[in-house]
């Protein structure tokens, strides 16, 4: 896992949009761009996870390379000449965003996603009417989507895969990058690829220990606290009325930082900052969902 670059690394000079920048050897192109003050959109990248470079929204043009390269994972080499705002880059980003928006419900994704869709001029409507449900064969003129009913099979969090962009973050968080539980994996192939437990068994039958780390990393709201899901269903979810209070988890001696999101005097979700030296944003069931016990809700199924 890439937890930052050691200070002893030799410096490497690259050019980003005409500007020379120096970064430590082993840095990624994205980090070099950041150093040059160029922000790159990312969807499948997260500081505390191994890059899987699958969403391709972060691509940039690298002189001498036939195809565009994913800036989130490509390591810098001395003398690289990088362009982040060429017509090719803009077309690819626009298309990636457009393809996702035409097939996935992005309405609960972070506000930056809507900003990128607008900034790159994505036109998700041009693929036709959205198919109301995921099927192998949508009607002629309909655009296939991943629309499907949310999976509500436990009291703590909901899996609404009609919002899933298949960024692999949850799988990584559940597996080698944090939790080592491996309750979920990518199953199927192509458009039918999806996140699944073995044979799609409900979570209570799987290896899941409800650490909620997958919920913590999900960028689109496909994985959502049941408390948030219920409020949204009731039309009562309102981030404007929420406060975020940092605190230290009271359950054990590790001392993970918690951020309690409170709406109307109730804790509605718990997050943890990514840059926390102990937890790197990952928690266990007690820190993540312990508030459910605090608030006397039925923790069982």
């Amino acid at each position, binding site marked *: 896992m890439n937890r930052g670059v050691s200070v002893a690394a030799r410096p490497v000079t690259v050019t980003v949009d005409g500007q020379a920048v120096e970064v430590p050897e082993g840095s990624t192109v994205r980090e070099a761009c950041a150093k040059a003050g160029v922000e790159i959109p990312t969807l499948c990248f997260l500081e505390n996870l191994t890059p899987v*470079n*699958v*969403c*391709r*929204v972060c*691509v940039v043009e690298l002189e001498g390379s036939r*195809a*565009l390269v*994913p800036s989130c*994972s490509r390591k810098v080499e001395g003398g690289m000449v990088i362009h982040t705002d060429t017509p*090719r880059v803009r*077309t*690819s980003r*626009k*298309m*990636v965003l457009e*393809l*996702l928006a*035409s*097939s996935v419900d992005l309405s609960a994704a972070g506000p930056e996603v809507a900003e990128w869709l607008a900034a790159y001029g994505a036109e998700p409507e*041009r*693929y*036709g009417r959205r198919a109301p449900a995921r099927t192998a064969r*949508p009607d*002629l*003129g*309909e*655009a*296939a989507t991943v629309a499907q009913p949310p999976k509500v*099979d*436990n009291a703590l969090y909901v899996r609404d895969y009609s919002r899933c*962009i*298949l960024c692999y973050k949850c799988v990584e968080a559940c*597996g080698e990058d944090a939790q080592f*539980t*491996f*309750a*979920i*994996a*990518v*199953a*199927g*192939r*192509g*458009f*039918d*690829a999806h996140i*699944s*437990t*073995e*044979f799609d068994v*409900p979570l*209570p*039958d*799987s*290896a899941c220990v409800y650490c909620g780390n997958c919920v913590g990393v999900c960028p689109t709201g496909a994985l959502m606290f049941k408390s948030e899901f219920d409020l949204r269903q009731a039309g009562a979810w309102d981030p404007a009325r929420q406060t975020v209070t940092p605190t230290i988890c009271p359950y054990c001696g590790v001392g993970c930082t918690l951020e309690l999101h409170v709406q109307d005097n109730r804790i509605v979700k718990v997050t943890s900052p990514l840059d926390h030296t102990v937890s790197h944003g990952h928690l266990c069931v007690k820190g993540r969902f312990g508030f459910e016990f605090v608030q006397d809700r039925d923790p*069982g*199924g």
Partner: protein
Amino acid sequence: MTEHEPNRVPEATPREMAAVDAVVGPELNGAAPAAAARRMRVQLQRPYRRDLLLPALLALQQAEGWISPGGLAYLAQRLALPLAEAYGVASFYGLLALEPEPPTVLHVCDDVACQTAGAMELCQTLERVLGPAGSAPESSEVGWHRSPCLGRCAEGPAVYVQRLGAAGGGARWDAAQTAEEWLQAVATGMAVTSAVPIRRRPGLPQPLTGRIGRIPPDSLDAYRRHGGYQALRRALALGREGVLREIAAARLVGRGGAGFPTAAKWEAVAKSPEPVRYLVVNADESEPGTFKDRALLEGDPFAIVEGATIAAWVIGAHRVYVFVRGEYPEARRSLEAAIAQARAHGYLGATIMDEPYPLEIEVRSGAGAYICGEETALFNAIEGKRGEPRNKPPFPTVHGLFGKPTVVNNVETIANVPVVLNLGAAAYRDLGSAGGSGTRLFCVSGQVMAPGLVEVPIGTPLKEVVAIAGGLRPGRELRAVLLGGAAGTFVGPEAWDMALDPEVVRARGATLGSGVVVVFDDTADLGAIVRRIARFFREESCGQCVPCRLGTVRQLELVERLEAGRPLGSLEQERALHRDLVQVMRDASICGLGQTAANAVASALALGLVGEGSRGQ
């Protein structure tokens, strides 16, 4: 919530346990209750053998007809693998069923070449007799699925048969029988199979196909009598550097599609500071329209063993993996027989001929996924992971199979290695043309009189290659040729005289790819062919990256709209949409599948092969 017990582990049947144990090794039995403790210890001591996952899944499939929850749980436990992950791998492959299937399952090719050979009629017949594809209840005797190209394009319509408790195999549709008779023959293993027809023109040099069909493929003696193992002797005399120089001077380039210089790859690995290296022979051959590697493996397997021996020795690899497409059990058997004989003669094992050099060749089977022919996806498949390509760099010569420096070569490339050494670099170069040395195998299928494998010097005109395969049917006119497979391009009649030389072809925006030449005359339903290609990519995308996973879906929708004469907006809007899809797939996809998935459709649109409106509405 629900009434099921949490974390209930389903039971495996004795047959499933035996199938898994046969691959993974038996579990140590001791008297209970010490057995459980011992088992834990054994498991911890056992080297990590995740690479046995795919072989064991194939064994489960054959033993039980599907991958049951119990069988998978047992296998996952034996390999100390999380169950969800094992499921993720199993669900990646087309030949592994995750629901019970009838004892006999037919995979019926409805791909580009077979469509011109009556595949649609065969599918209609099966629909009538067996019901719609994929619908058979477990209780029926025979089920069927539509399949992409099965590498039997000159023998179409092609069928691959999976049988409960037995190895699978190809079956040839026999129009002389009734459907019922034929199905009976298939279910009992009595259906006719066939070998790739080799089409020859007297006088042409045929260093690659000369022995096929003329000597028994299972006889090392016969192989030696016909020039076999002289190249290895020559290689050992030349030394590693000498062989590298010959291969470089011969300008041998890969025949797997990308056309990469072979010597450059070999040299990179030969000079690696890492002591453990691998050679992987890519026999996954799944590019629609391709059947050349199958012909070589079935018809002249010792040539592949000899070529691989030379390559492995030069690069310093002591283990070779040959990854054979799952639908090629006959090729696998033929190759394994050759390996066993070579080993018995001291040509493999502890020595290669007189040279003390430990070398083993291991054969692995695919399980039905085109993408596993991509070299890094192939590594993942062997390693027991989902066959998803890796991002490059790092390249295989640095970080390949099991993270070690690896050379990947196509079967035909490997077959060329002894040829180069036997002829010498200069004579080998002279066989070809300015754009490429040696001969090439072309898989000619579609609407020609005598489809089959054609070996010609590089640079032979398209027209002549087709003529060797019998030419067009009398009275018919050429409409289009699909060159290079689904990942290739359509060319029109104006390309008839084009030399099949990589440089010439590239200059025209086409590619020789894996040597596919599918010929369509003026009776072909090209719209249906283009639709099949678009569907192929939608179904064979690994699904990892957005441009390809979703771009291939949108491309198929677009082709279907144009075919139905119902564009969204104007035709120009549809064309603009396709141009955007071409660009994002080519520029931003992770691997060659996505990067080429729009080429054939783009060329078909340009040639006016799709839909009514494209003829100028």
